[in-house]
C-alpha cells in the first residue's frame, strides 16, 4: 500500500517549484503554497512577492533574528533578498491587479471544472476574511492551486460547481494535488500527471467532474 499513499505536501511544493521559469515573479498563498519557496531553482531568477508590500521575500529568519516590521501576508517574519524592495499596499495591488505577477500559487477549499476558485469562507461560519485573495486570483497571469485532492472526510474538492462563496470565477489554470496534476482547459479538466501507484480511475473516483486523461499521462516526477 506504500505506493498508494498520497504525496507529502513537500513533494507537491517541489512539483510546483519545477513549473517556475527564469524571470518569474510569484505570489505564494498561506499554507502549502508557502512551502514552494523552499524549493526555488537556484539557477533561475524567481522573485517572491508578498501582497503586503514586499518584493523579494527571502528565507525565514533565524530564531531571535526576526525584524518586527518585516513579515509576509500571513504576518510571519520573513527576510528580504538582496535586491528586494518595499512598497505600500497601493503599489502592491497595482502590481497584482495589473497582471504583473507571472503566477500565484494558492490554496483552495474548492475548485470547479470551469476554473472557479473558492478559498476564503466556510459558509457555516457566517463570516470570512477575503484579504488579498480575490485580487490575486483575478490578477495573476496564471493561478496554480496547491491542495489536498479531497477533504479530510474524503469528499472531492474538485467539483462541477463550487458550493462555497467564490474568490474568483474562471481563474484557475492548473491544480496540483497530492494525487495529480490537472490542467484547466476550455474543454474541461485534463489529467496530466498522477502520483506513483495511482490509477486514473482512482483519481476520477475522488473527483466530481469528468477528467480527460492526457494521452501523455505520466507519473509526477521531480
Amino acid at each position, binding site marked *: 500500500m506504500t505506493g498508494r499513499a498520497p504525496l507529502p505536501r513537500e513533494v507537491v511544493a517541489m512539483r510546483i517549484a519545477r513549473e517556475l521559469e527564469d524571470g518569474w515573479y510569484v505570489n505564494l498563498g*498561506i499554507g502549502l503554497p508557502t512551502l514552494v519557496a523552499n524549493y526555488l531553482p537556484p539557477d533561475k531568477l524567481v522573485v517572491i512577492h*508578498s*501582497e*503586503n*508590500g*514586499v518584493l523579494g521575500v527571502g528565507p525565514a529568519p533565524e530564531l531571535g533574528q526576526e*525584524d*518586527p*516590521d*518585516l*513579515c509576509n*501576508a*500571513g*504576518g510571519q517574519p520573513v527576510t*528580504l533578498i538582496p535586491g528586494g524592495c*518595499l*512598497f*505600500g*499596499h*497601493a503599489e502592491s*495591488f497595482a502590481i*497584482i*491587479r495589473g497582471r504583473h505577477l507571472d503566477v500565484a500559487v494558492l490554496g483552495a477549499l474548492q475548485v470547479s471544472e470551469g476554473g*472557479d476558485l473558492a478559498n476564503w469562507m*466556510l459558509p457555516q*461560519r*457566517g*463570516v*470570512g*476574511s*477575503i*484579504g*488579498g*485573495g*480575490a*485580487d490575486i486570483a*483575478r*490578477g495573476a497571469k496564471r493561478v496554480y492551486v496547491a491542495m489536498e485532492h479531497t477533504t479530510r472526510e474524503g469528499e472531492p474538492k474538485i467539483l462541477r460547481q463550487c458550493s462555497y*462563496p*467564490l*474568490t*474568483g*470565477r*474562471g481563474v484557475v489554470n492548473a491544480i496540483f494535488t497530492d494525487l495529480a496534476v490537472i490542467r484547466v482547459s476550455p474543454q474541461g479538466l485534463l489529467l496530466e500527471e498522477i502520483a506513483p501507484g495511482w490509477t486514473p480511475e482512482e483519481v476520477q473516483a475522488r473527483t466530481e467532474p469528468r477528467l480527460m486523461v492526457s494521452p501523455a499521462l505520466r507519473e509526477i516526477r521531480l
Partner: protein
Amino acid sequence: MPGKPVFSDPAQATADIPAGATIMVGGFTGRGVPVALLRALRDRGVGGLTIVTNDLSGGWSPWEDAALLVEAGLVRKVIASFPIPGSASTPTAFERLHREGKIELELLPQGTLVERIRAAGAGIGGFYTPTGVGTPFAEGKEVRVIDGQEYLFELPLPADFALIRAHRADVLGNLVYRRAARNFNPTMATAARVTIVQVEEALPAGALDPEAVVTPGIYVQRLVLVGGAA
C-alpha cells in the same frame, strides 16, 4: 520656518475626534499600527465609530490594532478585508458582535479597499476593477464590460480622520516608513480630512532625503511623538 503641529500627548492630538466619526487606521498584521492613538481614543470612550482598516487581530496575534476599539464597544461599523482570523476556534470580539448584529461589516478585497482609499485621496470619482467579478464581492455593484472584459464599479472611500504610523517624520510632515510597516499608511494619509501621525521623532526640515520621502507633508495635519514601542 514654522511647521506642522507637534503633540506629545496622543489624547490631546485626537481630542477633536467626535463620536460617529469615520476613521482610517493604518497597519497590517500589527505592523505600522498607531497603537498609542488608538489607546487614547479608547480611553476617551468615543463611540459609534466607523473604522476603515485592513485587519483586526482581536487578540489572535500578539499585536494590538483597531480591534481594541471593537472590544471596547466603540465601533458601529468595520470596513476591512480581514476582519476575523482564519481559525474559528476562539471567536474574536468582532466575530461575536457581528453575529449578534451589533456591528456592521463591509468586507472588501484588499486591493479594492486600498484603491478606493487612493481614489478618495486622488480625487477620482470612481473606478472599474476586475477584482471580484462573479463572486459575492460583486453583489449590488454595477458591472461594465470594457475592452471585452468585465469590471466592477467602485466608489472612493474617504474618512474624517486617518490615524497612521510612520517610522520618521520631519517638521513639515514628510514621512518615511520602515519595511512592511508601510502598508496602508501612506494611502490613508491622503484620504482623510485630518491625518494624524504617530511617530517617534520630528526631525528638522531637510533631515530626510527628499527623493526617499514616501508621504509628502501636504497630506499630514498633525504629528504625535510617541517614544519606544507603543
